């Protein structure tokens, strides 16, 4: 589904990613772990099309297409979804309008008609309930005044509504207490399917107790320096990242 080859990325003149390789197939969950400053957030931003990053080399192929050529909204319509580390607060725009506008943009891209108002409402209410969110959240401004946990749940709600193929979770566990973490993890686990892949970017192993990855990669100094199975995360938890960076 996603092939990242020798990817190098600069912010200004500083090289952040220094030849990153990653291959993600449908149905897989990949965890990307690493110390602060290794380039984890840069990777998720570059994949989702955020501006301010200069790709200086390498390629990213998504379902056979050049992902880096696509504007951010086309990537989203093609099924790439970024769950933000810091979801943005948008005053005056209701959650329900954002969800509907986004869903319709994606449907239009796929050649489908706009979603029926009643069907939409039924769908969004059931997804909201599944994430243990009050329906009132739908009519509040996007993320405005939400707690950290509520914001992250809201990201998962959007993901559940938009049904992307390639989900990128950027530090989704940060700022979550254990109850919120469980709800978010349940939401993600409910979305696991053989047609969908996940990249979970995380500093800590904690999230992986709840969402079991198929692969764990260590990102250090702009490259993947070690890959393994779920057990690698436990090893990192025990030893830290230092032994890998020196290697």
């Amino acid at each position, binding site marked *: 589904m996603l092939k990242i080859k020798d990817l190098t990325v600069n912010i200004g003149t500083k090289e952040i990613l220094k030849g990153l390789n990653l291959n993600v197939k449908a149905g897989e969950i990949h965890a990307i772990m690493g110390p602060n400053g290794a380039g984890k957030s840069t990777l998720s931003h570059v994949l*989702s*099309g*955020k*501006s301010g990053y200069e790709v200086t080399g390498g390629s990213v192929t998504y379902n056979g297409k050049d992902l880096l050529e696509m*504007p*951010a*909204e086309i*990537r*989203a*319509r093609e099924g790439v*979804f*970024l769950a*933000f580390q810091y*979801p*943005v607060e*948008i*005053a*005056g*725009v209701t959650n329900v*309008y*954002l969800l*509907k*506008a*986004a869903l319709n*943009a*994606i449907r239009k*891209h796929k050649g489908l008609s706009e979603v029926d108002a009643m069907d939409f409402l039924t769908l969004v209410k059931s997804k909201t309930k599944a994430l243990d969110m009050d329906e009132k959240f739908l009519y509040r*401004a*996007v993320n405005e005044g939400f707690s950290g946990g509520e914001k992250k749940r809201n990201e998962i709600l*959007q993901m559940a509504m*938009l049904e992307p193929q390639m989900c990128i979770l950027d530090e989704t566990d940060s700022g979550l207490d254990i109850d919120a973490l469980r709800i978010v993890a349940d939401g993600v686990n409910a979305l696991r399917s053989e047609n969908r892949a996940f990249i979970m970017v995380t500093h800590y192993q904690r999230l992986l107790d709840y969402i079991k990855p198929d692969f764990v990669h260590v990102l250090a100094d702009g490259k993947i320096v070690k890959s393994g199975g779920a057990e690698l995360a436990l090893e990192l938890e025990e030893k830290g990242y230092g032994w890998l960076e020196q290697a």
Partner: protein
Amino acid sequence: MKTDMSWLNTFRQSDLTHFEQTSFPSQRLEDWRYTNVSAIEKKQFALASQIEKLDDNAKSRLAAFTLNDCYHGIFIDGFFQASLSTLPESITVCSINEAATLHETLLAPVFNQAIESPHGFTHFTNAHFSDGIFVCINENSQLDKPLQIIHFATQEAMSATRHVVILQNNATATLIETFIGVETQTYLTSSVLEIFLRDNADLTLYKVQQDSDKAYHFGGTYVQQADNARFTHHNFALGSVLARSEIISHLETGAQCELNGLYLGANRQHLDNLTRIVHAKPDAVSREYYKGILNNRARGVFQGRIVVDEDAQRTDSQMNNRNLLLSSDAEIDTKPQLEIYADDVKCAHGVTVGQLDEKSIFYLQSRGIDEDHAKHILTFAFANEMVDKITVPSLHDCVFTQLLARFPEGAER
């Protein structure tokens, strides 16, 4: 002119003399430094005349802005249309020309009393007004539905109207001023409204200026608030190529004044908003919140002045002006001013000028929404904060529709 309107003619004559001496205001005057009105003089408009009938196009435009849950006072090119109007019967309301004779005892003592700093446009309007509305609501009475005053311009001409509203002690009312014109017509509409709120009276006034995009507009609202009177104003400046709006209110003890505004400029529109709130006596409260959105080469002006007289102890006043510039050629001149002569006061003011937030645009794009649509959503949301304050459903719907036409798909219909 009828002879029994002589008292009014005396005023007209005096204003005519002033206007002939000074003409429209020059930019040398501090209050007019950001707005050049010389284009109006160059147009050499003739005074509008009464037209026989509206064509279908004009009729449909008028119908589109006539609110269904209100009373109506309709002026076409400045002339009162009794047959098109539906005025409430429970209060004193009629054209100002009628009131000059019928209600001289109410009108003559207050006429011109609320206009604190007259200038070319107030002189012009007083000298040349064709008609206007007179409203007086008795003590302890309430107007059961909003009264919508529609100013509809159809001719390439200038028209002036003059209005007086009196709310006696404990009276309550909602008024709506709607300014429209035949699309693409060039004209000048000039309107002066004086409002007298007696003790504990409560007036909510909406102004929707949706004149044609080639029109010139002047609208002055001058208010006197007696003890504990409440005045709430919602000012929407959406149309015209050059518009000047003035709201000046004078607050006695315990009065409350709330001024909300939204100016929405595009292309080469110039939208000037002057407000002045004078706290003359103690314990009055004022809240002012104006927002501006300027696109293309549009220019906005906000001059907000709060004056706190020596007597006005325990004044509580807040003024806020927020601006969104959507293009690098758009301009805002914002000048909040506090003049405080009392020592025990609480006054705050703030101004912001900014662009749409890049992070918010990207967030929406990352959900599949394209950049233009994302910008419409965010701009609509910025403006909608003011539209949401409208509590008359049909008016809310009308302004919401106008806003949506400017920023398509900015919100759900």
